[in-house]
């Protein structure tokens, strides 16, 4: 049996006295869209950072298709096929959109500085291919024609998409999306949802995402994991999570689960 795309075993990450992620076990099956949700400060991004190599967890193991990756430097992890985006967009601002995507292709290219000086055949071929790929990706995210504008001059939604394109450029098998629809208007959100689905369906990329917008999460996720105070409190398909008391309490505070139950009933009554 093929191992899952990501499997974390008892991953724990502490900052001083604070345990940001506490013995989390997580399984992300291949070619799925999985989501991590939870209130602010639940440790979602910390877990993300552990997976993408920014942090080294104090305890536990992270397996990527069965191979342990915890503690590896981020560029090695990227090379293995994990790419990510960031909660607060972190593009290379002074570079153009195309260049951003070209940087994303860094791993898949092999030419070095000497090739660059002599412009040998390998260099020319590789650069040409890279440029073609970049333009295709621009097309894919609907930014063709804007490729030569600086990243910082792009509109917000376009920056989010460009960040995804940069991540895709490294041909990842796993894509980590940190709040991909944050700050977007409904129409942009719809487009983003479609894009994410496309990624999975067309490019067969496994997707793990953090998202606050429940409609997005419920619509596209195959599997949802809920974190609170660094602990996994629930896991399952969207409909299971929707009705999980613990989750509702985590979001709205203790005792609210019953309240909402009542409210629901009331609503039903009115209906």
């Amino acid at each position, binding site marked *: 049996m093929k191992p899952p795309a990501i499997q974390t075993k008892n991953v724990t990450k502490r900052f001083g006295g604070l345990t940001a992620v506490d013995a989390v076990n997580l399984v992300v099956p291949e070619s799925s869209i999985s989501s991590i949700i939870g209130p602010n400060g639940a440790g979602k991004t910390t877990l993300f950072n552990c997976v993408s190599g920014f942090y080294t967890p104090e305890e536990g193991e992270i397996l990527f298709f069965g191979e342990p990756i915890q503690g590896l430097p981020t560029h090695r992890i990227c090379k293995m096929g994990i790419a990510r985006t960031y909660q607060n967009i972190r593009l290379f601002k002074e570079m153009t959109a195309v260049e951003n995507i070209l940087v994303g292709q860094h791993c898949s290219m092999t*030419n070095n500085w000497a090739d660059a000086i002599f412009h040998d055949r390998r260099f020319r071929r590789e650069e040409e291919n890279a440029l073609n790929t970049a333009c295709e990706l621009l097309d894919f995210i609907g930014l063709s024609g804007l490729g030569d504008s600086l990243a910082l001059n792009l509109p917000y939604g376009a920056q989010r998409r460009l960040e995804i394109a940069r991540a895709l450029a490294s041909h990842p098998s796993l894509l980590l999306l940190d709040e991909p629809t944050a700050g977007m208007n409904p129409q942009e959100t719809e487009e983003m949802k479609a894009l994410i689905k496309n990624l999975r369906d067309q490019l067969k990329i496994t997707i793990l995402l953090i998202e606050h917008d429940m409609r997005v999460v419920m619509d596209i996720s195959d599997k949802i994991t809920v974190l609170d105070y660094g602990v996994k409190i629930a896991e399952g398909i969207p409909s299971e999570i929707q009705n999980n008391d613990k989750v509702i309490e985590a979001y709205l505070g203790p005792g609210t689960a019953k309240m909402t139950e009542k409210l629901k009933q009331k609503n039903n009554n009115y209906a």
Partner: protein
Amino acid sequence: MKQNKIKQGVITGLTFGLIFIFLILTGFTQVGSDMIGNLLGNFEKAGAENALPVINLILFTGLIGLLMGLSTSKANLSNTWLASLLNSILAGLIAGLLVGAVILVTGSFHSQGVDFRNYLPKLGSEQMNYLLHYTTPLAAGTTYLITSTVASLIGGAIGKAFRQQSWTAHSMTWTKNTVKNIGKKLKLGQSPQRKIITILGLIVAGGLLYLLPLVWGSYWNYTMGTVAIYILLGIGLNIIVGFSGQLVLGYVAFFATGAYTFALLTAPQPHAILMNVWLAVGISVIVSTLTGLLLGLPILNLRGDYLAIVTLGFGEIVRILIRSDLLTFLTNGPKGVTNVVQPSWLGKVFSDVNYTHFLFLLVLIALFIAKRLKDSRTGRSWIAIREDQTVAQATGINTFKSKLLALALGAALAGLAGALFASRNQFTGPEDFTLMVSVNVLCIVIVGGMGSLPGIVVGAMVLKGLPEILRELDDYRLLVFGALLIAMMIIRPQGLWPAKKVSLELQRKDSLGDNIQEVEP
């Protein structure tokens, strides 16, 4: 409301008054007046009589007043004519009063025989008489006051008139548009034509680069040679600071390593190795590169200013060690290495013209290499690191290796520049490698425009050429240079010639378009 309106005039008056007093105390008034005299062509006759210098001095005062008036009118566009002129007069009066008072006080002391020179060396007897227009303090003070006020009034009027009709604004937009249009035309022109123009231009420029060293004499050969060496250094540091964003303040260390390696390998003293020049150049470059690698390995994971101070320290360490008693046996200590060999070709030693040509050629090659590096996977990874190191690494770039490569390449170029520097001067000593060299090169990179290659050429020209040109200003050149540096950063922080982005997407479309055209017939 009224107070607010006057405020501008008061502040300008105070500022300009203080500036003028500063100019008087540093003796710059005399230099400035002489310059005016030079411009008017009456300087030659100046020596004989006192009248002309005084007129020049008054003109200089007037010029300052004029500038003052102009700057008062700049601030409030909404001001009425009356308010604007009132402001100018006020500024003129205040500045004039300040200067007049200083002249009055110092002048009175001076006429009582007080000698200021122990504290203010520029206020000697002769200079005081000159500043007093060879009259009484009171008369001179009044002259300053009147000149300043009148000139400020005129300046204010002119400024107001110009702004009123926003004539300058019109002309500005007109020029901008024209330039844009010309640019568009050039761009829109068919590419074969463009190519021909470019090639023609290249030939002309290349010809000039070849011809100029032949005609402009040894002084300019020497100065431009220095500029060329600094361009090489600038290109090297630009790879480190401009491309990969690592603030290295000890770049001089690699320059010194290159120069000393070359000098010690070729000079008859202290080691008499007398190696072949070209081989020695190669070894110098290699040694500098290794120094760069060795320094980079432990410290390149430091960030920002920590890296800056560590490299600064390294530069100082190298310089102090070179001149120390500890290494005198190796480096000849503070005396430096003399009789460093000059390069020769086919048995003939380079003349200064040859040398300048050779340096120009190297600069062109280095520019070419840097340009190619910049537009490659390597160059992009550097710029990505500059923009956001963490993300760059997460995007798959081995940041440490990449930074190390940048440092090594930068060090190699510095080593080359150092070897050339030593051989051209036929001498190298520890005093050539002070902290100010690193600072100068950094200034070149930033003044030219971070990460911009043509910027480096312009920057080196301005920073190494300008002080030579400013030699006309004698003692004041470094003062002016410092002030220009500040002004330049405020007016044009992006640099003289900021880096331009290559339009890759457009380029691809162009090339595809060309292909299609080729296919169709």
